[in-house]
């Protein structure tokens, strides 16, 4: 590619085979990208097709003796504008598909015919007008001030100085306008941590709603899913421990418990309901002996 471009640059105004090869490759790709813009169903694909077209146009600018514009094309169009498009696409939602219903009857066919006619007219006119034309080339114009960038700078800051200033004002206004349009006024004050805690305590006072954090789901208790409720000490599942949208018939969400856990749950339930059952000896995990403290605690509870 580099050698092709160099060749194209060296052959200059008369146009060598290098330029011709680059033109046909990049021109074809640019047209394909443009067609992709129209015929893609998904908007993201359209945006990427346009990016392809922009890059190929940049190469066409480069072989057209406009190195400054070629690089600006890459930086401004593919770099800034297309990425801005993609950002807005992501904000708006990538799934917003096009409606393919014709609101105006026959509008589509009319549009295609119109564009076909226009294209044939323009291409025929331009083709005959420019037939056999030879480019003068920019070698002379560039050498006046020492190069393409210098020549363009001379144009900008002498002939088109007023236009440049007006455009500067325009672009600042556009930036401000975008900020104003995208700004959303906040009508209520933002709730900080203190305000939220006050609201929570007031709600607790009025409705008795639990002011603290909700229990965590029983993710590690029986299964790996966040929809699994945590088991309360008596073995019943806690409705509050699972996220709101998953709440409801929580019992159906408890996966098949392994037999041991089911047995444990039954045992704990029976203890909680006051029935004495035979318990295995509780051993201190460190010493291996019976733990007197646990024994005492159990005795106390039994008395109660």
């Amino acid at each position, binding site marked *: 590619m580099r050698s092709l471009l160099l060749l194209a640059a060296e052959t200059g105004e008369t146009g060598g085979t290098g330029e011709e090869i680059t033109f046909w490759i990049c021109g074809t790709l*640019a047209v394909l990208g443009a067609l992709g*813009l129209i015929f893609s169903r998904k908007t993201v694909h359209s945006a990427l097709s346009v990016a392809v077209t922009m890059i190929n146009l940049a190469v066409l600018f480069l072989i057209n003796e406009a190195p400054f514009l070629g690089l600006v*094309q890459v930086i401004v169009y593919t770099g800034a504008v297309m990425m801005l498009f993609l950002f807005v696409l992501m904000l708006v939602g990538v799934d917003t598909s096009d409606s393919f219903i014709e609101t105006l009857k026959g509008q589509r066919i009319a*549009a295609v015919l119109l564009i076909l006619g226009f294209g044939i007219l323009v291409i025929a006119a331009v083709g005959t007008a420019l037939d056999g034309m*030879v*480019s003068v080339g*920019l070698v002379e114009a560039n050498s006046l001030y020492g190069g393409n960038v210098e020549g363009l700078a001379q144009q900008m800051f002498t002939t088109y100085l007023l236009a440049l200033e007006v455009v500067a004002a325009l672009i600042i206004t556009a930036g401000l306008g975008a900020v104003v349009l995208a700004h959303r006024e906040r009508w209520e004050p933002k709730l900080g941590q203190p305000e939220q805690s006050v609201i929570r305590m007031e709600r607790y006072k009025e409705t008795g709603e639990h002011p603290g954090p909700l229990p965590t789901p029983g993710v590690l208790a029986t299964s790996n899913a966040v929809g699994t409720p945590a088991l309360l000490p008596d073995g019943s599942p806690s409705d509050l421990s699972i996220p709101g949208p998953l709440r409801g018939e929580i019992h159906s969400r408890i996966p098949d418990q392994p037999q041991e856990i089911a047995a444990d749950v039954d045992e704990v339930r029976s203890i909680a309901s006051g029935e004495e059952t035979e318990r295995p000896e509780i051993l201190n995990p460190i010493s291996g002996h019976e733990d007197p403290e646990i024994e005492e605690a159990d005795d106390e509870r039994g008395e109660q």
Partner: protein
Amino acid sequence: MDPGNYIILSSILFCIGALGVLLRRNAIVVFMSVELMLNAANLAFVTFARMHGNLEGQAIAFFVMIVAAAEVVVGLAIIMTIFRTRRSVSIDEPHLLRN
């Protein structure tokens, strides 16, 4: 190389862009088609600059690029605002002024 080739390519791209504006309903796609038309015009400007051995065409193309960038910024902000209120980016939707 014959400058006519570049101009014909530019016309083809312009026509495809105009077709996109007329056929598609998604505001973002319509907007991208407008960008494509501006780019096609830029290619014509650059080709004419080289054809006449004069840098003015490139200067104009540069101005077109700047104005297009400003236009994109404001246009996308408008699309965002419409989407925020109407929940749609279809250009058939905003017909509140009808009747």
